[in-house]
């Protein structure tokens, strides 16, 4: 952690993560380690939350910056919880449906007759249905099982065939474990599902009240992610130094993969497109995942991202 040499006007910033600290968050740990936050006069505290998700906590003022994902933000906004996306940490949705090779699941058609291990949310059902519909496959032939918090590798040993994973973490772990997987990326099958995950968020009131603070935070964070993009290995070490509990191999491999995915094909790191917000909101609305549609242009903003040098 950075030394607290900056004396007078350091501002405390609390960041609430979406999950346990992992390679998605590297940029922030880099910014902390390299003194980027300090340079902006910020003292950043990173907290791992409960299962609750960051959105309502951020809206409730229990934290300044949160990490969320597009689906959560969309649901939150449709319920009148005023949170706004500030940057997409990863440009494309790297999640998909993974299954051990021996289950022979090559396309969504093959989901039929298999057991899916999920966390029981209607959104999962909608996504799987959308992908299967393309192949005229019947979602009713999928055995949907709620496995809650159980990790992927145990779930496939205990009766499930496929699950929805992030390649950047679980997929990488499978490579380390030498478990051969078939992987069907969501965005390949259904472009409207190429949503942003994870996303940095803040509440509307925070943005209105302290735009300067947000700007400073985003400037430093951007530097952090840019550094991570260029120096995957060193960044991984920085994350490991901050969170020594993490598995070294996994972090190194994951970071190598993710550093290429942070910015990907976008003009700058973090930039989001209206079409992605609109398409996914429409998808959710059409599938009754939200009761009323949102105004996509209000759900996010790129204005706190620093201009390209």
């Amino acid at each position, binding site marked *: 952690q950075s030394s607290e040499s900056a004396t007078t006007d350091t501002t405390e910033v609390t960041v609430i993560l979406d999950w346990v600290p992992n390679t998605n968050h590297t940029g922030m740990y880099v910014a902390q380690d390299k003194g980027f936050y300090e340079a902006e006069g910020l003292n950043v505290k990173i907290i791992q939350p409960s299962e609750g998700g960051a959105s*309502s906590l951020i*809206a409730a003022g229990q934290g300044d910056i949160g990490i969320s994902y597009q689906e959560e933000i969309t*649901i939150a906004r449709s319920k009148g919880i005023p949170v706004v996306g500030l940057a997409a940490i990863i440009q494309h949705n790297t999640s998909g449906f993974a299954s051990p090779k021996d289950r022979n699941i090559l396309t969504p058609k093959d989901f039929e007759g298999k057991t899916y291990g999920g966390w029981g949310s209607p959104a999962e059902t909608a996504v799987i249905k959308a992908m299967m519909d393309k192949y005229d496959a019947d979602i009713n032939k999928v055995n949907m099982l709620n496995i809650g*918090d159980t990790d992927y590798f145990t779930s496939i040993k205990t009766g499930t065939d496929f699950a929805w994973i992030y390649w950047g973490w679980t997929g990488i772990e499978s490579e380390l474990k030498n478990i051969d997987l078939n992987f069907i990326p969501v965005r390949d099958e259904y472009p409207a599902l190429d949503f942003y995950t994870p996303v940095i968020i803040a509440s509307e009131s925070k943005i209105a009240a302290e735009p300067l603070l947000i700007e400073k935070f985003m400037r430093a964070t951007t530097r952090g992610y840019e550094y991570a993009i260029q120096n995957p290995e060193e960044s991984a070490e920085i994350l490991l130094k901050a969170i020594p509990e993490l598995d070294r191999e996994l972090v190194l491999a994951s970071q190598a993969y993710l550093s290429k995915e942070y910015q990907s094909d976008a003009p700058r790191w973090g930039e989001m497109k209206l079409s992605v917000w609109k398409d996914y909101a429409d998808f959710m609305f059409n599938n009754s995942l939200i009761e009323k549609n949102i105004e996509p242009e209000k759900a996010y903003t790129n204005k706190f991202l620093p201009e390209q040098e």
Partner: protein
Amino acid sequence: MKKFINTAKKSSALFTLGLLLLLWEKGVSWYEIPAYILPAPTQILDGLLKHHQLLIYHTSTTLLEAVAGLSLAVILALIIGFLLHNLRVLYTAVYPLLVFSQTIPLIVLAVLLPLWFGWGVLPKIIIIVLVCFFPIVISFLNGLDLVDPDQINLFRSMGATKWATFKMVKLPTALPAFFSGLRISATYSIMAAVISEWVGAQRGLGYYMTLQQKSFAIDQVLGAVVVICVLSFIMVKIVDLLNFLLMPWNRNQLVR
């Protein structure tokens, strides 16, 4: 007179509850707290009514699990209590481990159990039994130790078998303690069932709460909490009723 006092007692607790709810309601509207942070009691009630069919559906599952788990815990507690009481070797070897088992955080188990026992009803029942078994068996064992050794001597002098002595002397003596343990377990049974549903359930109040929570419906989450409290209360009352029915000789001591 006694009846009156009892009624006064009950209504006094209800009064406090009412007062708290009123303060809550007024506080929420006074400070303009948004519903996604803390809904007012009336909003929770609205939510309950709106979702009442769903809630009945999920509640029935949870209740079934709780009753099944509690019943199993009772049976196990009786059997293991009997064994531990009669085999002192077993007692010293197993009892400390039973105590140890209570220190394992349930949520960790909730995550690990499916690993070993799959996704069926088994891991759920294990969690409920683990929660409910302990208070019953401890109280039961304590109750069995309350037996007057002279009473045992009397039965020995009359040439009674060990089993006859257990049935006629020890079991009835241990019943009140057994029931006070069962009462505690009944209080926790619903909560345990809900926790067991945190992982790997397709229905039940725990599942319902997770879902509602993920969609920011705190009113529904708190609604489910209300249902849990009420169910727990009913479970306790059922135990009290059983207590009353099974111990006719003890009846006028039931008044609390």
